[in-house]
């Protein structure tokens, strides 16, 4: 900043603006970014202050120089490069979205096939036998029965956990519908009553409250 400090009175005000203050306003003065009173004060100051006029000139030259440089277009990418990059990103996002949907769809189809197959298998086997693979039924009563009933009682396969109601085929078909499930035969075998090879009458409540199985073991208990 130059040493000779001129002072300019603000129009309509009692305050004065020094060269230091004026020099701070010049960057905005050149682009008319000052309010009216400031613009007038700077203009008056510049009329009488050579150093500040020189400073203003430097700002204007720098401003023109910057604008002239800005007229030169920046280096641009090869034609289509930006579009290629944008489209690649969009394609990637789309592929991911499609991939996710495909996985979900495939999973749903597989699950549907699995459920259908399991249901069909259950229906098929249910026509002549009942599978018992889970413990969703409860033995609600087991008690000895008279010896005279034993020859006609159904057979039980302990290994396969299957109740075979050969002599009650009509009942079997009726009850072999889901959610008819399992009976834990091992519990029957381990019970004190079956250990004595006494014919048993066992009532089994399935998971369907409307279905109850009346099961009579033969003289030898559980096979």
């Amino acid at each position, binding site marked *: 900043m130059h040493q000779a400090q001129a002072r300019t009175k603000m129009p309509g005000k009692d305050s004065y603006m020094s060269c230091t203050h004026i020099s*701070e306003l010049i*960057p*905005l003065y*050149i*682009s008319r*970014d000052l309010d009216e009173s400031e613009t007038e004060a700077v203009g008056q100051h510049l009329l009488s202050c050579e150093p500040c006029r020189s400073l203003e000139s*430097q*700002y204007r*030259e*720098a*401003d023109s*120089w*910057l*604008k002239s*440089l*800005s007229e*030169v*277009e*920046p*280096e*641009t*990418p090869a*034609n*289509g*490069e*930006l*579009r290629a*990059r*944008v*489209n690649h*990103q*969009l394609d990637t996002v789309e592929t991911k979205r499609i991939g996710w949907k495909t996985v979900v769809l495939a999973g749903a189809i597989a699950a549907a096939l699995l459920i259908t197959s399991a249901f069909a298998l259950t229906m098929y086997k249910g026509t002549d036998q009942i599978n018992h693979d889970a413990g969703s039924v409860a033995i609600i009563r087991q008690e000895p029965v008279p010896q005279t009933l034993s020859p006609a009682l159904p057979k039980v396969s302990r290994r396969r956990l299957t109740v075979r109601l050969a002599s009650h085929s009509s009942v079997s078909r009726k009850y072999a519908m889901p959610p008819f499930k399992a009976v834990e035969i091992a519990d029957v075998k381990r019970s004190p009553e079956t250990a004595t090879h006494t014919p048993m009458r066992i009532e089994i409540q399935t998971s369907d409250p409307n279905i109850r199985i009346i099961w009579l073991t033969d003289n030898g208990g559980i096979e």
Partner: protein
Amino acid sequence: MPGDAAGILLVAENPGSGSEAVDEVLARARSGDRDAFNILIMRHEQRILRLAQRMLGSREDAMDAAQETFLRVFRHLHTFDLKRDFSAWLYRIAVNVCRDSARRRKPDSPLALVEEAPVSERQESDAILAQQRRILRQALSILSSKERAALVLRDIEGLDTVEVARLLNSTPTTVRSQISSARSKLREFHLTHASGAGANKDAGKG
């Protein structure tokens, strides 16, 4: 510019029928038509790249910002009101992307401009243009990111102070302060580098 885009651009610049053609492309792009969206990119990419390069400095950063700008536009285009000025909307998104990008850099430090794309510059037929670009990059690199954003929008893009403040989510007073500071730095840079031996020295670096 490829022929199809240029053709549409000519139609768009033809008074009377232009607005309909522009709206049609925009409406198609808005409904998800990728071809129409590519036409929009072709139409605006130069301006967006130029802005991004001014605000960010390096060509690669500018490419990233321009790419992000158009991706954001594509994602939100379905919400765009066709009665509004698409160019202004796009421009505002680009400024926001550039601001976000600049913010991710080191805070309170001038943007470091990488001496970039030497291959491209070697292929530049006009060495003077390449030199001018380099000098401009160097000049802008001495500014802080906020000073640069304000100066680029005000002095290079030619927006008024109020509009610059609006785009930068700032106030006119703050923007004026940033512009004043930026011009002071550029005046000194100009005195030092852009005349006499300083300019020749810079030219020699190329």
